[in-house]
């Protein structure tokens, strides 16, 4: 790895395995852009990477306050990483509120790069520091390595001849920080220059000023004595050669739907209504018109799903995306999709609830709603994604199950997966599982009568779409007679149809992979059974526990309904089962209910993901107790 900007001075470069960095500032400070740029540069080096943005629910919370703090955390490493880091090693704090809000998650001995202008009297007061107190000066940060940098002043000096207004110049201060971090981690600058030139195509002055700010930050690192003792760091690349892209969970869902439609030879239709944190699935797909994708921003959540059911009836790969409150509104229509037996993919990006709850924060509290949230007996498959990249595979699998088993499928992600990103080795279309819709062939008058609800041995009916000659038929939300689909209020028929619909879902277990042990022994003291976005934290914690000699394994559920056929057997191989969940205990109920066992729950309901240390402590506590 060579630097494009030559160093004027010899500074010691230390190799490190991994580092977690937080860019934090006011929501107007451009920290999301800075973090994203930094992540893009890191990714292109072939380093392992995981990112997570954390921003306020309000578009413009009061400047300078804790509520207005916007952060972007990333971990990059020479070995695989599954989380943005339980704690960060480096924190950029553009103002005092950013420092105050995040200091608790900085490692002792971690680095703080503080923009001194954000620590003036006004900012300190807004952040709630007592009168006269300034953490940059009063020694309260002596457990950390503190670098106070007059970021704004240095940016202004660098850009004084740029011709930009003072307001525009001030807005470039995030690029100064970016340049400084590039210097600190011996990263190249050209990628960012290219991005800036593309972004400000119509404003060359702006592009050049931003580039100058990046360079100024870089040179500052180089020239100042400030970092002489610390030196610079180098994280060796780890990725194997190949083509990569960085995706967030929401982007991955959108790509997966488009890919599934391509693979199945269907047109994609997404009926949707904007809702945090699911909206990027809609906005990403709205830009995929080149692939023939039709998106429909409906008047409400109900119209979102119902329009998709209409499209599914017409033979499209139909999907809808939402978050908790939206899923609540869609439940009646989900029941319709269940009884119509039409394919439909529902992506629910979970957030803190109930009601409006914590719109921008992740939670795994919609599992019960996904499983049971419909009136009547209305079972449907539920699957859950475990990482941003897994959002692709999980959504794709949801589409496969929906189309091949003629059923709505709920794919659960959450606000953490939705916004986190990681590098993804670009997939080849040939490696994706086939998706085979079973359309009913046209019928001649001499053929036997068409039976819309005649089932194959998987209890799946054929997809009979309008435009197919001889299959004209009427279906609806009323209970239907077995096979003919005619309206029927017959008591035995209703029981039969209810059981057939349930059996169809249960038989999906025949086509899904068996549950695997992600890590650890096949028999032992403890199995940590996770689902969804806690994958990274559990994975990391279990790895560490194994290194420490504990008998612990990790299994992560993708298929929650139906469960993989061997799950019961796996659960029987451990003395104890631990179920960590970002809710008040939901999967644990389903596990108890299904297998009549007593796992131990570990819940967190704080609107933030698990970190690996919490889980590691829980694991070691349980095993010590088992052994005592």
């Amino acid at each position: 790895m060579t630097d494009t900007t030559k160093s004027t001075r010899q500074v010691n470069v230390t190799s490190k395995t991994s580092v977690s960095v937080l860019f934090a500032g006011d929501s107007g400070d451009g920290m999301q852009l800075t973090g994203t740029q930094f992540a893009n540069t890191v990714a292109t080096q072939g380093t392992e990477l995981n990112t997570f943005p954390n921003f306020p629910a309000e578009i413009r919370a009061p400047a300078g306050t804790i509520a207005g703090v916007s952060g972007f955390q990333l971990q990059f490493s020479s070995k695989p990483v599954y989380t943005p880091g339980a704690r960060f090693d480096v924190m950029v704090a553009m103002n005092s509120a950013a420092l105050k809000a995040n200091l608790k998650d900085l490692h002792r001995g971690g680095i703080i790069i503080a923009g001194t202008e954000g620590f003036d009297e006004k900012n300190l007061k807004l952040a709630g520091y007592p009168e006269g107190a300034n953490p940059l000066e009063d020694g309260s940060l002596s457990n950390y390595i503190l670098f106070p940098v007059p970021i704004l002043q240095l940016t202004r000096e660098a850009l004084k001849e740029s011709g930009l207004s003072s307001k525009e110049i001030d807005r470039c201060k995030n690029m100064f920080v970016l340049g400084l971090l590039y210097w600190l981690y011996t990263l190249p600058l050209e990628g960012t220059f290219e991005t800036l030139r593309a972004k400000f195509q119509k404003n060359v002055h702006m592009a050049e000023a931003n580039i100058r700010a990046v360079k100024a930050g870089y040179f500052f690192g180089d020239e100042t004595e400030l970092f002489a003792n610390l030196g610079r760091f180098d994280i060796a690349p780890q990725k194997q050669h190949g083509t990569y892209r960085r995706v967030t969970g929401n982007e991955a869902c959108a790509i997966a739907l488009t890919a599934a439609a391509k693979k199945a030879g269907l047109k994609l239709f997404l009926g949707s209504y904007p809702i945090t944190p699911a909206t990027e699935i809609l906005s990403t797909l709205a830009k995929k018109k080149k692939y023939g994708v039709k998106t429909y921003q409906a008047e409400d959540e109900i119209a979102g799903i119902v329009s998709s059911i209409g499209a599914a009836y017409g033979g499209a790969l139909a999907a809808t995306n939402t978050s908790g409150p939206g899923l609540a509104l869609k439940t009646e229509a989900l029941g319709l999709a269940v009884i119509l037996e039409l394919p439909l993919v529902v992506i629910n990006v979970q957030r803190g609830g109930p009601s409006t709850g914590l719109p921008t924060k992740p939670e795994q509290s919609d599992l019960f709603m996904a499983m049971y949230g419909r009136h009547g007996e209305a079972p449907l498959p539920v699957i859950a994604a475990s990482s941003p990249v897994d959002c692709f595979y999980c959504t794709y699998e949801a589409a496969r199950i929906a189309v091949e088993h003629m059923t709505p499928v709920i794919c659960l992600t959450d606000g953490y997966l939705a916004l986190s990103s990681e590098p993804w080795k670009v997939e080849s279309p040939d490696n994706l599982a086939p998706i085979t819709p079973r359309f009913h062939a046209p019928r001649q008058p001499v053929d036997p009568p068409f039976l819309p609800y005649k089932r194959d041995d998987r209890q799946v009916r054929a997809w009979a779409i309008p435009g197919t000659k001889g299959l004209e038929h009427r279906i609806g939300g009323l209970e239907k007679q077995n096979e003919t689909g005619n309206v029927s209020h017959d008591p035995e028929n209703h029981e039969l149809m209810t059981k057939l619909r349930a059996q169809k879902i249960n038989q999906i277990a025949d086509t899904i992979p068996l549950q695997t042990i992600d890590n650890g022994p096949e028999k032992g003291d403890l199995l940590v059974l996770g689902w969804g976005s806690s994958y990274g934290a559990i994975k990391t914690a279990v790895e560490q526990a194994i290194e420490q000699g504990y008998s612990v394994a990790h299994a992560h559920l993708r298929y929650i309904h139906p469960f993989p056929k061997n799950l019961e057997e796996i659960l029987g191989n451990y003395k104890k089962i631990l179920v960590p969940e970002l809710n008040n205990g939901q999967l644990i109920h389903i596990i108890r209910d299904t297998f009549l066992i007593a796992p131990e729950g570990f819940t967190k309901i704080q609107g933030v993901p698990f970190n690996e240390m919490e889980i590691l402590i829980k694991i070691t506590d349980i095993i010590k107790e088992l052994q005592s």
Partner: protein
Amino acid sequence: MTENTTIPVLPVLIAKDFASDQEPKWCPGCGDHAVLQQIKNVLPELGIAPENIVFVSGIGCSSRLPYYLATYGVHGIHGRALPMATGLKVSRPELSVWVGTGDGDALSIGGNHFIHTLRRNPDLNVVLFNNEIYGLTKGQYSPTSKIGLRTVTSPSGVIDQPFNTAALTLGSGGSFFARAFDRDGKFLRSILKRAALHKGTSLVEIYQNCPIFNGGAFEAFSSADNKANNTVYLEQSKPLIFARGKRGIWLDGFQPIVVDLDKEGISSSDLWIHDETDINKASILAHFADDHADLEESLPRPFGVFYAKERITYEDALTSQISDAQKNGIGTFEELLRGDQSYEIKKA
């Protein structure tokens, strides 16, 4: 499959061919029977094969409509027929998509979808059975029930201002509104055909009698005398004349005035000439219904096409955006998976 490979002769279909094998379960005397018959009469005239026609409905007596037609049909959930039909039409623009709905289904629980569908203008034929009552749930007042109507849920009389369907349609940006009457089969048939031929959302409000829970709601327009005196039939470019040619509507600025043709020295050429492309005139016609037609000197209730002006349909606009996006070729599978921000990691 037949062995004969000669060009198939398209069968000439008649109304009976569009009857499904299900016996209608509406009450005897219900206006729905008459509407169903006229739909069956119109369908063969459209020259569309039955497999390319879909009837979508919500919930309510009228929403049973799809079961009785030998086309494709989906009976959905309460109030949601319009979004279901829209989703179908957007994904399959070549299909002829019809919606059967009622005043409760379309204007109460589905009110939001009603206004938004009209402004988007997908090419749907919406047949709104307005009986001013909830029939299937046994006689509660609906959003079109008249003030004062006593029902099981309004024992002291309805106090809610009813919706004016025509004004609501036009106010929502609807591109077609017509009113018809279940009792006037021939006229209904002609209106349904006009609606089917209109490209865009065509909204046909049908006054439909519920003999069980709201019998006689449209009595003011029913008997021969009432019909003559209280209704005006709209014909394009023709003056608004009613009462067996004796009375007409004269437009004084924006004010419609009923005039006697023989008494007041006004000839038919002085009267309001109907122009269904004029949104302002259509809006005035819509508000004729604000009058109580059974009162003396009131405005007659208009029937026929109030407004019909085609504009681009939702599905055509979307298709055109997609064609634009594909003008340099359809995106390939590889391109989709690679994205436009991919990067190469070379062997170290």
